[in-house]
């Protein structure tokens, strides 16, 4: 009886009208790179703010042939990733993988996988904060008009003021970029490390914000330029001498965590944020020491 009821779900959970509406928004998003398209964000069995924007895009574009990867902060085993993956596979039956190279569709929160993505892959990003102008114009209607008129002067003043106050462009994530020389876009929620990898990429990037009901996109081979000043250029988090304690990688985005030594003390260590990439490196190192 249980099974019969659950089979009543449509493939991909969303009904076909909802999928069509999201698909139409996605086509316009690709046609106007970096512009935020409003869409009717549906209620899902996951609360808004937990990746429902990315989830709705994934459910609207997924086909039975897809091979899915879901990551949270670069980690395939994060709570958010595990739950979203379970919901998607239970309502579609698609194959899943942790290998970035084997996936045709990757849904992600906070990271672009370290391995270069290909033209036949689509990266879907879960977006918490949509509008970079939020910092300087909290009123959504006025911010929409500012985007329409490419009126970004106040954002440049904000950047300048952050340099004057802090001596640096103090932005950790959601770094603002100009897409195709026209629209200012929030790269939320990826770290600065991943921002240059949006520029002239091979892959299509789709951004979905469920709580704020917006969809936007960066097509492949599209210029994405971070906001910066000549004397205060954009910088990633890279630090000379950085190294992953597990695989020894030096050119990856690292996260730090505290390892207690059992005697009440301990130390901070850094390891790759992209767990699948790190595991792959470890495995190949074990085969060929």
């Amino acid at each position, binding site marked *: 009886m249980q099974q019969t009821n659950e089979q009543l779900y*449509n493939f991909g959970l969303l009904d076909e009208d909802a*999928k069509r509406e999201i698909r139409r928004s996605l086509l316009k998003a*690709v*046609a106007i*790179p970096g*512009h935020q398209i409003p869409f009717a964000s549906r209620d899902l069995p996951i609360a808004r703010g937990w990746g429902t924007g990315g989830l709705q895009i994934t459910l609207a574009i997924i086909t039975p042939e897809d091979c899915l990867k879901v990551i949270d902060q670069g980690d395939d085993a994060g709570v958010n990733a595990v739950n979203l993956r379970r919901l998607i596979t239970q309502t579609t*039956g698609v194959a899943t993988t942790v290998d970035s190279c084997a996936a045709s569709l990757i849904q992600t929160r906070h990271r672009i996988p370290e391995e270069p993505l290909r033209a036949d892959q689509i990266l879907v990003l879960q977006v918490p904060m949509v509008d970079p102008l939020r910092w300087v114009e909290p009123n959504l209607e006025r911010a929409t008009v500012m985007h329409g008129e490419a009126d970004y002067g106040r954002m440049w003043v904000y950047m300048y003021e952050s340099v004057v106050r802090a001596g640096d462009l103090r932005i950790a994530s959601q770094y603002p970029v100009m897409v195709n020389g026209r629209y200012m876009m929030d790269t939320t929620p990826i770290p600065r490390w991943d921002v240059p990898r949006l520029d002239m990429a091979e892959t299509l990037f789709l951004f979905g914000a469920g709580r704020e009901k917006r969809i936007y996109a960066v*097509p492949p*081979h599209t*210029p994405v330029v971070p906001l910066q000043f000549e004397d205060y250029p954009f910088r990633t988090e890279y630090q000379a001498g950085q190294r992953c304690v597990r695989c020894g990688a030096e050119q990856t985005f690292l996260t730090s965590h505290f390892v207690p030594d059992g005697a009440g003390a301990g130390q901070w260590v850094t390891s790759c944020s992209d767990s699948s990439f790190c595991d792959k490196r470890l495995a190949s190192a074990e085969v060929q020491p």
Partner: protein
Amino acid sequence: MIAAPPTTQAYFNSRTFRILLDSLARPGTLGRLPPPPQGYDLPLLPAMQLPNHYAVAALLSLLDQGTSMAHAAGGLWLSAEHPLTRWFTLRSNAQVETPAYADYVLLHDPASAACLGDLKRGSLTFPEQSCTAFLCVAQLDEHGATWRLAGPGIAGSRTVGIPGLPANVLSVIMATRSDFPLGVDIFCIDVTGACLGLPRTTRIEEVCS
């Protein structure tokens, strides 16, 4: 829980969408639309007047009660009483709209490309409230060189062959996208189901031979 497989129509719609999305993200790279599923019983019209069934199926995959449409053949907009208009509205629930307000249009032949100038281009605040046009063409050739394309989605530039277009089509298309971010997004679809996406960001020029 057991996932129900998609119905034939839902599966077709999802496959078609992925091709449309990819064609629009990579202008100049031709997508191959899947053949329409059974049941596309086009109305009884003389064979000459029947539109390209790949384009019809692709358009129908996006239409529902929340959208509006119009269509043109031979350079003229077809009326709401035209048998094909009724056929479309019956299957999609889409509203028939005057061309200047339609969300989606089907242009049955290259001659109707002149009608692209009549379509809505959105506003500065809402550039997405613009028309998407499906233009039926006789043939698309990835290795041909009628047009040279450049812009987002294209590494450098690409050429594409579209033989048999009327001479003024390019100037009509470029006029609709002279004022980015406003513009009309176009899918060209040929009789074999090859699909060329021309988003408003694509710059097109004639290849001098």
